[in-house]
């Protein structure tokens, strides 16, 4: 946007760098959301299925036996100690006690978990007991049918914990009438892998179903042989109140950061708001005006001569971000406090969001080239315009050559946008509302991933 204003360009040429604030303003909406709102957003319920070791930053971390309680049920940890008594051991099953410096607990290993445990120990439990070896066993605390606690050998938490918490959040949202936000932490293990789990909303049966999945890389590729056994693959929790879930697919949590999900009562049902802190006031026209005023005042205070141009450039930069986001699905609440709800996005090119992104980037570049070309002579950078279409295409009159150049430069973007309109109609016709919801979800995730993209 700076390139629209020759006085600002002249300042840049002469080493006065204030106009760079317009670029900063253009990034502000996401900066505010991802560097402030995200962290300050209230998390009413925090689900940490596999707390990380503070030193290694990996799960599981060690827990001492005397710290095991109802509150820790289903969470993935590891306990460390010596085998006490081996009560039962056969193929696919073992039952024994483990003792550490703080207490003793019953340990049960079954199915593939037993097999894995033997592989890790390199021996049977009996042999480990006889050798008096200090061993570590990952798993989670569970309560047996007899009501007594035991340690279930596992390499993932039980999904029941997550299902319960999500259901709790939905119920609280209904009862309190305000948004309840749940933060679900992801599970990071050695080798920079993540345990994938899915949260499925079965609105017809008022059920939350959580599936515990395999280990995946940050690129989303599953690691063979890491699917949990059937007995601890599923967690189901029932909600007291109805909820609406238009989005047809489960919410997937794996690499990078776990999401915050908001639940809010809307009429008689509870609706989900994915990553609720994003695209709020920060993504509005109102905010762009405020940004311009603030920067303008700042510039005036420090004595920058072209403060007015800078203020306008900042507003336009900020606005460009807001409007570009409006090309997608989610949309934003554009004119708070006058408007309260999000204006849905234009939903262009749902099947090729990368191409839309690229086309919009090209548009910005094209505008820069156009402006720099037409202003260069007046700024003394070049003695004449470098791109003069009237000399290449004789039929273009000199007084229209700038507009012709603009048209030529932005034509690829316009074509992509046009194709995006067509694609949108086809998409909506095919997938309807659920498809739109899915696309919104994907867009939100993409934005979050974009923040992570840079190393």
């Amino acid at each position: 946007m700076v390139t629209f204003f020759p006085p600002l360009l002249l300042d840049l040429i002469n080493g006065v760098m204030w106009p760079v604030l317009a670029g900063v303003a253009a990034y502000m909406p996401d900066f505010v959301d991802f560097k402030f709102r995200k962290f300050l957003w209230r998390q009413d319920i925090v689900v940490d299925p596999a707390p990380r070791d503070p030193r290694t930053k990996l799960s599981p971390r060690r827990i001492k036996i005397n710290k095991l309680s109802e509150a820790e049920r289903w969470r993935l940890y590891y306990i460390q100690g010596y085998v006490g008594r081996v009560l039962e051991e056969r193929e696919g099953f073992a039952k024994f006690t483990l003792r550490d410096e703080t207490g003793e607990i019953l340990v049960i290993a079954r199915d593939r978990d037993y097999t894995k445990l033997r592989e890790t120990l390199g021996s049977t439990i009996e042999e480990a007991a006889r050798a008096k070896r200090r061993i570590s066993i990952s798993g989670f605390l569970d309560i047996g049918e007899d009501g007594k606690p035991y340690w279930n050998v596992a390499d993932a938490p039980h999904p029941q914990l997550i299902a319960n918490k999500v259901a709790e959040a939905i119920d609280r949202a209904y009862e309190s009438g305000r948004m309840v936000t749940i933060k679900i932490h992801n599970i990071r293990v050695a080798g920079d892998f993540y345990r994938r789990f899915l949260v499925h909303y079965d609105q017809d049966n008022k059920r939350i179903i959580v599936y515990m999945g395999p280990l995946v890389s940050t690129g989303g590729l599953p690691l063979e042989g890491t699917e949990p056994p059937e007995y601890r693959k599923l967690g189901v929790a029932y909600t007291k109140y109805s909820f609406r879930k238009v989005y047809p697919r489960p919410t997937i949590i794996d690499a990078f950061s776990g999401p915050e999900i908001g639940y809010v009562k809307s009429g008689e049902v509870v609706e989900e708001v994915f990553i609720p802190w994003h695209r709020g006031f920060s993504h509005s026209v109102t905010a762009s005006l405020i940004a311009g005023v603030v920067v303008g005042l700042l510039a005036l205070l420090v004595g920058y001569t072209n403060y007015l141009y800078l203020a306008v450039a900042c507003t336009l930069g900020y606005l460009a971000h807001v409007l570009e986001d409006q090309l997608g699905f989610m949309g934003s609440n554009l004119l708070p406090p006058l408007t309260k709800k999000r204006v849905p996005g234009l939903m262009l090119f749902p099947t090729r969001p990368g191409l839309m992104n690229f086309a919009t980037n090209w548009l910005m570049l094209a505008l820069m080239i156009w402006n720099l070309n037409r202003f260069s002579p007046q700024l003394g950078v070049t003695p004449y315009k470098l791109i003069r279409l009237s000399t290449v295409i004789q039929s273009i009159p000199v007084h229209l050559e700038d507009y012709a150049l603009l048209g030529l430069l932005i034509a690829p973007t316009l074509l992509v946008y046009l194709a995006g309109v067509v694609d949108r109609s086809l998409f909506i016709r095919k997938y309807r509302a659920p498809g739109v919801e899915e696309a919104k979800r994907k867009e939100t995730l993409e934005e979050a991933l974009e923040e992570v993209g840079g190393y």
Partner: protein
Amino acid sequence: MIVVEYFITVFDVILWGLMGASLGLALSWIPGLHIANLMILVLYATPLFTGGNEYAAPYFALGAVVAFSFMSSIASTYLSVSDESMMLMLFPSQRYLLVGRGHRAVLLYCIGALIGALFLAVFMTTIGVVVMPIIYNLFSPYYWFALLAVVLFMFLSEWPKESDLGRSGLERLWLAWRQILGGLLVFFASGVLGLYATYSGLIKLEVSFARLTPLFIGFFGLPWVLRNIISRRTLPAQDTRHVVETAPSAVINGATSGIIGGGIAAFFPVITGGMGALIGGHMASSRGDDAFLISQGAARTVYYTGALFFLFHPTMRITRGAVAWLVGGLYTPKAWIEFYYGAALIILVAGASLLGTIYMSKAVAKLLTRVSYAKISAVIAVFLVALVYYLTGFNGLILLAAATAVGFAAMVFNTRLSYCLGALILPVLLNITGYTDEALTLLGIR
């Protein structure tokens, strides 16, 4: 044509180009060593190019640079293993290595590098002939604005990796901003070191070309190898079959992202490959480990090779990067035929480097599972320290130590290692905004 034949022949171009490529292939696998350092060593230790060989110098350098862009993948894949506990996010090449697929990472990188080299040669000799001078003239007055904007974007877009661990909003905010503040510390500390290295007599005048060498080895080379030694990682056996798992869309996406990023870095002064790749990745919405590795290969090749190749363009002849400045001081190609020779050489050397890198990758993969990783890293550490001492003496070691502390801080704060480029960027930004004076007074060397 006759005039150029007198200066250089096709045979000379190929011979010197392949000689340069051999140098690049032989030495570029050492972590922390930049191709410019290698070129400088060649010229300092054995001034081959005085006495009539100046016309061949650009081709020698071009061969070395193309080879470097391929072969440096060996260092970044095999010789920078990390503990996940030390880094909250491993690079894809490190992840691949830890699961025995280091060679695949190199192959993906090489795919990107080859595409980057081909694109560069074809684009520059066709559309680039017309377009690049225009782009240069339009954007050259605004270089420093672009640099400042990229630096700010780097800070603004940093992803706080530890914030999830906070229990309250303020704690999460602090954990997030701690990382960003760590980044600022790294940037400004490295900037201060860059100012001292540039504006004091710490480094002897005779080796002022190497005034930043201790810093860059300290930022990027030593922390890497020290980390390797500390983590005491053993590597699993590596699968050295020539297999890659990717999709055409990932190749296109990765290559596009890399070419954009590398092109930006090559064109704008001071902006490096990593910074350009950040922009390119955002523009092309790059996703997935395979796309990332391909984009790295494309970005690095377009960046290093493109920066030098601009020197060959007869109507543009901009000088980018240390290698171009070095070569341009000996001889700057002037004729179109030299330019086209250069493009052809890029393709030739890219092919040779691809083969060389693939086989080097297999050899290193086998070696690493037999020889202690920590021992190899220790040898490299000793070599790097000795190199710094040889070039810059005791004062260079002081700079090296300080820079290693900064590189270590970047690691510990989980912030971008690119911030260490503050050593280059901050002096430049101060200079163009007219605040060098004040900075030097503050630092006590005015």
